[in-house]
């Protein structure tokens, strides 16, 4: 019966990402390549509560190695020290991931030049914004996978969290946290690449700060409201910002909503 929990959590955590993949990525082989490369690149800092795919992995490995060494080298009974080390590990890993995100941007920039050279009409088949979005989904998927995979294995049961007094809702909140992380990585990807592209450093700084804030908020656990609410608020902010940067506006949104309501009168594309 705990299969229900397993599938429920999987759908919550990865349902949105799956939909994005299905409708916006799966049809274009180039996007799939970028997604995979992005997710592998992002395999870096999984010691934190969660984060992106090869690049993500590399940063993950490095930071978890450092954290592991630090923990082994220190006194395991010194609670404040251990907590401090964990916080240090998380922060370090966030910074490392963002560094990798930057490296990935550099790499994609180079790739674009190659794509332009190859194409017949002299322009790239994919824009840097599209790349940013796909890479962001890739980072997000991998980070989500890493924060969720252990949990999902244990969600199969037969037991559930709580014998030491933890909340019953542990699996549910973790799934929602993973969902928000995937979204956040997607939006951060857009923001970050936009910042790099247009030399708007405050956008990059904002991404790093948001990332640190979300990771930091997970230290509120087991008070799950303390991590979920700020994360969703930040996600909303990042979503709006990313939407604006990618050519969205209130007016467009209104037109979209109207259009969705009255399918019969399609607006001409501008």
């Amino acid at each position, binding site marked *: *019966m*705990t299969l*229900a*929990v397993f*599938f*429920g*959590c*999987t*759908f*919550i955590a990865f*349902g*949105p990402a*799956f*939909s*994005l993949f*299905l*409708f*916006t990525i799966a049809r274009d082989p180039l996007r799939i390549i970028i997604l995979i490369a992005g997710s592998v690149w992002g*395999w870096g800092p999984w010691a934190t509560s969660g984060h992106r795919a090869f690049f993500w*992995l*590399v940063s993950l*490995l490095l930071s*978890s190695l450092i954290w592991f060494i630090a923990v082994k080298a220190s006194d395991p009974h010194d609670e404040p020290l251990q907590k401090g080390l964990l916080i240090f590990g998380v922060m370090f890993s966030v910074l490392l991931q963002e560094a990798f995100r930057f490296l990935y941007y550099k790499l994609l920039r180079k790739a674009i030049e190659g794509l332009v050279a190859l194409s017949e009409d002299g322009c790239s088949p994919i*824009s840097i*914004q*599209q790349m*940013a*979005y796909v890479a962001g989904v890739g980072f997000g998927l991998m980070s989500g996978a890493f924060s969720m995979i*252990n*949990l999902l*294995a*244990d969600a199969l*049961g*037969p*037991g*559930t*969290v*709580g*014998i*030491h007094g*933890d909340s*019953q809702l*542990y*699996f*549910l909140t973790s*799934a929602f946290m993973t*969902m928000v992380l995937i979204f956040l990585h997607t939006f951060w990807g*857009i923001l970050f690449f936009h910042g790099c592209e247009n030399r708007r450093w405050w956008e990059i700084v904002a991404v790093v700060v948001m990332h640190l804030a979300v990771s930091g908020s997970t230290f509120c656990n087991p008070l799950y409201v303390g991590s979920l609410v700020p994360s969703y608020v930040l996600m909303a902010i990042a979503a709006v910002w*990313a939407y604006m940067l*990618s*050519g*969205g*506006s209130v007016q*467009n949104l209104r*037109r*979209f909503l109207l*259009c*969705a309501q009255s399918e019969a009168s399609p607006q001409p*594309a*501008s």
Partner: protein
Amino acid sequence: MGRAGGRRGMTAVVGSCWISLPAWCGPLPALLLALLVAGSCEGNSVERKIYIPLNKTAPCVRLLNATHQIGCQSSISGDTGVIHVVEKEEDLNWVLADGPHPPYMILLDGNLFNRKVMQQLKGTSRVSGLAVSVAKPSPPQGFSPGLKCPNDGFGVYSKDYGPQYAHCNRTVWNPVGSGLSYEDFDFPIFLLEDANETQVIKQCYQDHNVPTDGSGPEYPLCAMQLFSHMHAVTSTVTCMRRNSIQNTFSINPETVCDPLLDYNVWSTLHPINASEKVDPKKEFIMVATRIDSHSFFWNIAPGAESAVSSFVTHLAAAEALHKASDVHLLQRNIMFTFFQGETFDYIGSSRMVYDMEKDKFPLRLENIHSFVELNQVALRNGSILWMHTDPVSRLNATVEPQVKNLLDILSNSSVGANITLQEVGFSQPLPPSSFQRFLRARHIPGVVLSDHQASFQNRYYQSMYDTPENIQMQYPEGLSPEETLEYVTDTAKSLAEVATVVARALYRLAGGANDTSAIQADPKTITQMLYGFLIKMNNSWFQSIIKPDLKGILGDEVPQHYVAVSSHVNTTYLVQYVLANLTGTVINLTKEECLNPEKAPNAEKEMYDYAWVQGSLDPNSTSRVPYCVRSTVRLSKALSPAFELREWGSTEYSTWTESRWKEIRARIFLVASKELEIITLVVGIAILVLSLIATHFINAKADVLFSIPRDPGAVSY
């Protein structure tokens, strides 16, 4: 999982992991995967949030004989149930009828672990398993999961030999025996050895599972999962056939059961050449005891009264005899024999008789002049030690005078001692004893000494309560381990008296004519042996008398005397080295010569066994002073002849086998309500569907949404 995994390696099995990486894995992902796998083996943090493993448990496992399977097993993925604590018989109603959350895992108080309760639990599908806590103090009414008539059918009495005595018709030896050990249960049963873990489970039950106002408790509920899946089924015939099919046809044979086997320990007063046959005219007095015990749970077999009391007395008697000044003049030899596996239809003695008949042993049955067996001697009523004889063979005109002589010598030896030896009534058969296996083969005059006249004094025969307390071993408070080892208990003193009487009787039986008052068993040795075999093997004395490479077997836990399927259980080793220490001589050989006696100039390899032992600690340093011990102690195989003959359905020889298993473990955790699980699933599906629809629309109208700047937006085409 290898043999070790299925056997003793209970703890090693917990958290077993398989590291198999696909060949295409590059070094980096491989390293990562290895890290992940290693992490999951220690139990990841999510697992620690969910489960509390129970580490100090003993399972009930499946044993098989020619016709039956006994013991317990779980399903292959473990059995789970909501915990219910049963401390009174009324509590059972909740489990059997009222409780709304079946199946239940019962935490059963040790005092309720009896046949009546178990029959009720067996007949219902509302029980998924059982965890039994140890009753402290031991149940006053007695507790024995063994049979009322132990080893029935494998002793001497049958329809052809004293049919009136067969199947305990005259005397029920173990009246408190419930036979639970010999039942088959289709749910797992574990013993909780640690009171703290029992308390943790009870606390979890108190917090989550206590029924309120007759209605069921609210979710989440505290549950337990027990893993003890057994590979063998039906009977030894079936499982041994499967083993042989596997061995014949499979490249990777997987054994499903193993015969119980170990080694008998024996030595002689005068050295004999172990590699050739003894002269048929040489006469031997055979002294015997069993060295194994059993209980309902695997490898829980303290056997204080049923094994240790008698073999310790036997060892002390052997020492006392060896110390006597004129033993080399005795005309008859004495053989001290310690049989292993006797609990399981006389494995050790039946094998020795078989070997003697088949000329695979230095002695033949004809060499045995008489037989003296010690059988449960610590719980004497008053000071009487009872002498049991076989009424059937005494009808024989040649045997009767020899038995009479034997009884007279024994009775006379107790003159002056605190012990009176008395003959039981002529119409009573022998109690379950190794001697019966020798009688099956030949009419040998013999006697079995025990503390019971008819049924056993021991109310805890073959149970986990047959502990030092059962034989009244009491130590004053506050002694250090070293002081406890040396402290001479009353039990030791009284066993020393028995040993003295036995040693003097053996001296007379062997033809000694001199005064026997110098032959005296040492209570100090006995108390040390009792401590070592019943309380803690890891003591300074045992450390000093064993081989250096065996020091690992000395553990701090309570010693257990189960025969098991791996040869050389600790008991066998220790009896061997204690006997060598008590009856052997220190000999001036170097380590090389001691380990390879054929290289030593005047060592008699055929006559003696040489052992290089690690010696006691030098008081001034931390090193030990090893030395070489020469003794006549030898081992002989204790594997039932049924397996030698491949007669797995034998009714003549023991056919006991132990099933193999992969995993034995127990854990407790909470289970969530069905509602919460369904809610999670529904929310998940809702989110999936919602996001599919939303993404579809956003994607379809991307040109509307992302339109102002000329270059297409993130999601647009």
